[in-house]
């Protein structure tokens, strides 16, 4: 049977790459998340060009601005150096040596991640000095850490786990035969580590270091409480007096953040150290620490004591000190305010994360590089410093209200939805992680099997993929919820009247030196942080058990 159906003349050609970049059903959420951050940022330009241009230019270009740029970069470099100095040896000790308790420490050293920077600042500020907790309790007066030193310590303690994690993973993945080969070629143990293994940790250093630097750049709580004038402090200070100047500082912050991201990409280019041959899949013989072991163990425990124990101890101490009668701040209203923002944030961020994670895992229509790029777009909100994003959203809300709402009314400006919007995009990256891991564990054939059994696209997703995603979705939602409860810079800028969150109250009272009054807020946030850690560890554990 030969039919009239002839071979068609149309050549077979896959669509051009730029067509695959355009938004479609699969990539739309990623586009929305990326543009949802980038479009408001454009309003910073609007705000920057409002008002007396010459005066603004003069303010922007004065030496003080450059001094602040220098201070910010200096602090970032110092924190990066300090976190590396802590994280690399710590990671080496728990992965490659016979240190006692190294398995436990490997988990415990991640804990400081959960203590927000401003809480560490609270602890450091309220423990030292003549009227600090230490002097009042023991009569021993600890130095009161402020300014650069205080900021450096608080930011280092809070950030070193990020580098610790990436170093730990990288060290575990290193092929031990490299070390052995270097030893066989006549290098001593230290030279072998430096020559054969250290260069391979570079990608881990760059990835973790970028996170640390972005955190320092975006930090507001620590530097404002420690009175160290970086971009954030200058921005917040100028907000009251010169909004156009604040917008320019925000743009400079964005430029710096973008610069660091580009720098990371450039430094990483062509530096992929994929193993040339399949590794032996084992760790090299652990380095014997000998008599130094107990001291190193003590050092790590001491680090933990400062990073986690100190905040806990100081907030407990102050919580039982007398408070000023007229400072009447119940926990209920702030807790409700935090909840009202954090719950919708958690749900919405997770809902948005599901299609983006799906895109990242199931690279179907788009090529791998395209969907990877789109996934990165969803991280824009994470990389954008909180104050800059908040200011951009404020500028956008005012502009839109002026255009679309009748005089005397506001719709977006100072509204809860705007705050939630900011939170969702800021925490989206945290939501993507666990959902993506869950997706990776789901056989893509399952959804296809459901399709061939007569279920439509939506039904197949809801009846097969969603139930299997549930642990990942729960972990994502919990992570975002707890992070949102702790968020400070966005709360400072965007909270509507009557929505003073827990974090805002802690920051505000600590700034006034009212430690006893601030302590209950600190304790609540610490409890939430403990929950955060529990979720991370549980999610991690369930992943381990699932992969058999």
């Amino acid at each position, binding site marked *: 049977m030969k039919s009239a159906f002839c071979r*068609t003349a149309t050549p077979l050609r896959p669509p051009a790459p730029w067509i695959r970049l355009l938004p479609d059903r699969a990539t739309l959420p990623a586009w929305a998340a990326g543009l949802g951050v980038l479009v408001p940022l454009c309003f910073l330009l609007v705000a920057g060009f409002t008002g007396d241009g010459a005066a603004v230019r003069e303010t922007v270009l004065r030496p003080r601005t450059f001094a602040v740029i220098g201070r910010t970069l200096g602090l970032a470099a110092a924190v990066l150096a300090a976190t590396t100095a802590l994280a690399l040896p710590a990671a080496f000790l728990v992965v490659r040596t016979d240190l006692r308790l190294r398995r436990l420490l490997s988990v415990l050293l991640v804990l400081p991640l959960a203590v927000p920077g401003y809480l560490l600042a609270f602890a450091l500020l309220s423990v030292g000095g003549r009227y600090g907790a230490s002097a009042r309790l023991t009569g021993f007066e600890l130095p009161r850490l402020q300014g650069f030193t205080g900021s450096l310590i608080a930011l280092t303690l809070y950030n070193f786990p990020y580098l610790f994690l990436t170093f730990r993973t990288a060290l575990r993945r290193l092929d031990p035969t490299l070390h052995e080969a270097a030893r066989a070629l006549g290098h001593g143990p230290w030279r072998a580590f430096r020559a054969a293994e250290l260069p391979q940790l570079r990608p881990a250093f760059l990835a973790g270091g970028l996170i640390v630097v972005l955190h320092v750049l975006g930090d507001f709580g620590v530097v404002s409480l420690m009175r160290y004038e970086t971009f954030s402090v200058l921005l917040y200070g100028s907000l009251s007096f010169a909004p156009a100047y604040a917008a320019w500082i925000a743009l400079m912050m964005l430029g710096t953040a973008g610069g660091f991201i580009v720098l990371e990409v450039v430094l990483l280019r062509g530096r992929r150290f994929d193993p040339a041959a399949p590794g032996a899949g084992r760790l090299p013989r652990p380095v014997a620490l000998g008599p130094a072991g107990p001291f190193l163990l003590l050092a790590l425990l001491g680090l933990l004591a400062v990073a986690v124990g100190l905040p806990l101890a100081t907030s407990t101490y102050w919580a039982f000190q007398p408070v000023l009668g007229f400072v009447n701040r119940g926990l209920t209203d702030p807790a409700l305010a935090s909840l009202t923002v954090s719950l919708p944030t958690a749900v919405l961020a997770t809902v948005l994360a599901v299609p983006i994670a799906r895109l990242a895992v199931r690279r179907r229509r788009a090529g791998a590089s395209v969907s990877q790029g789109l996934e990165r777009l969803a991280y824009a909100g994470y990389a954008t410093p909180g104050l800059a994003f908040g200011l951009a959203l404020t500028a956008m809300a005012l502009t839109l209200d002026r255009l679309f709402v009748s005089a005397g009314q506001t719709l977006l400006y100072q509204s809860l939805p705007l705050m939630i919007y900011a939170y969702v995009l800021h925490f989206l990256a945290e939501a993507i992680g666990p959902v993506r891991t869950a997706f990776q564990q789901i056989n893509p054939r399952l959804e*296809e099997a459901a399709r061939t059994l007569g279920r439509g696209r939506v039904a197949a997703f809801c009846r*097969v993929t969603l139930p299997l995603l549930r642990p990942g979705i729960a972990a994502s939602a919990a992570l975002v919820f707890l992070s949102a409860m702790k968020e400070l810079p966005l709360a400072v800028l965007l909270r509507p009247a009557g929505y003073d969150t827990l974090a805002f109250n802690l920051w505000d009272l600590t700034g006034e030196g009212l430690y006893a009054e601030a302590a209950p807020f600190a304790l609540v946030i610490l409890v939430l942080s403990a929950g955060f850690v529990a979720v991370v560890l549980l999610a991690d554990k369930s992943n381990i058990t699932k992969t058999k």
Partner: protein
Amino acid sequence: MPLSILQPDPEVEPDHRLCIEHLSCAYPGQTAPAVNDLSLCVAAGEILALLGPSGCGKTTTLRCIAGLERAHLGFIRHGEQVCQNASTFLPPERRGLGVVFQDYALFPHLGVLDNVRFGLTRHHAPTRRGRTDLARAALDRVGLGGLDTRRVQELSGGQQQRVALARALAPGTDVLLLDEPFSSLDAGLRGGLRQNLRELVDATGIGVILVTHDREEAMSIAHRVALLRSGNLLQTGRPEAVYRRPRSAFVATFLGETNLLEGDAAGDVANTPLGMVELDRDAHGPVLLSLRPEHVAFDFDVSADLRSTVRVIAREFKGHDLTYRVRLHGQTLTVQTDAGALARLGDRVRLRPVAPACVVEDDRQTP
């Protein structure tokens, strides 16, 4: 706009359950199409094996038929229903085809019965009890009755395979698409399951397209095999016919061991290093011939023609038969004899074809 929009949909013979014509599919970012202008049909009660090395496009073809992959061009028809033509693309859920995936894709969050009941809707049985009965019947049909409360993780590989089969059959499809259904099972289990499948097809009259890279599996179970390479359909036919009369050197070697000989044809004979060889069809000029090892026999009388004597260089005893490797002008040939014909290593013997050699297309160079 493809030209095909101007063409009427092709006529399909009534007993063909599923037909595809001129199917072409390319993945983005790749220049060579994964499937290129493929046409085939499967009849009721027929098992059609799509056979080929890995990456030949057979799984892609199956996914295009199921609607899981979108073919760029081509026509797919299931019974009376057009699944794809220039203006139509039916989503997989509306094609009514049963699919068994290579890894079975059983839903891990559902039990055995719920897996099988998944594809059943009100349309199949108005009540839940009715749907349960249908699912139980499907499980019985594959010999898994009584396992319906088990979790799928607790089943053995063979049981999982049969659950997947029951799940695909339960909605009452008349075409089943199987993607390497036996590949992850051990050899002992395969034979029985293949037999079960063959019986099932004979009993129900459904049409089956089976994707496999295992030639023995294809030839033992399929009514017809379709051989694919690099997205191109090389040859279709009954397994015996394709084995005996391969169209090309690739088909000949893929379906079993063979001796490829170059020769100079003149009519129904050709002059080869083995001497004059009878051909299966008329040919002229330089030809490539395929001669199966079992179609060659030893002739111990070496005095007749010294030119075509060979030396035995290896001997493998396989129980019911013997395989010899012999050396002829720098080429190694394989000869398979019954255990009675004895030759020792180093013996000089003469080879004698016992069946006509096949004239095959020389497609050895193309990868």
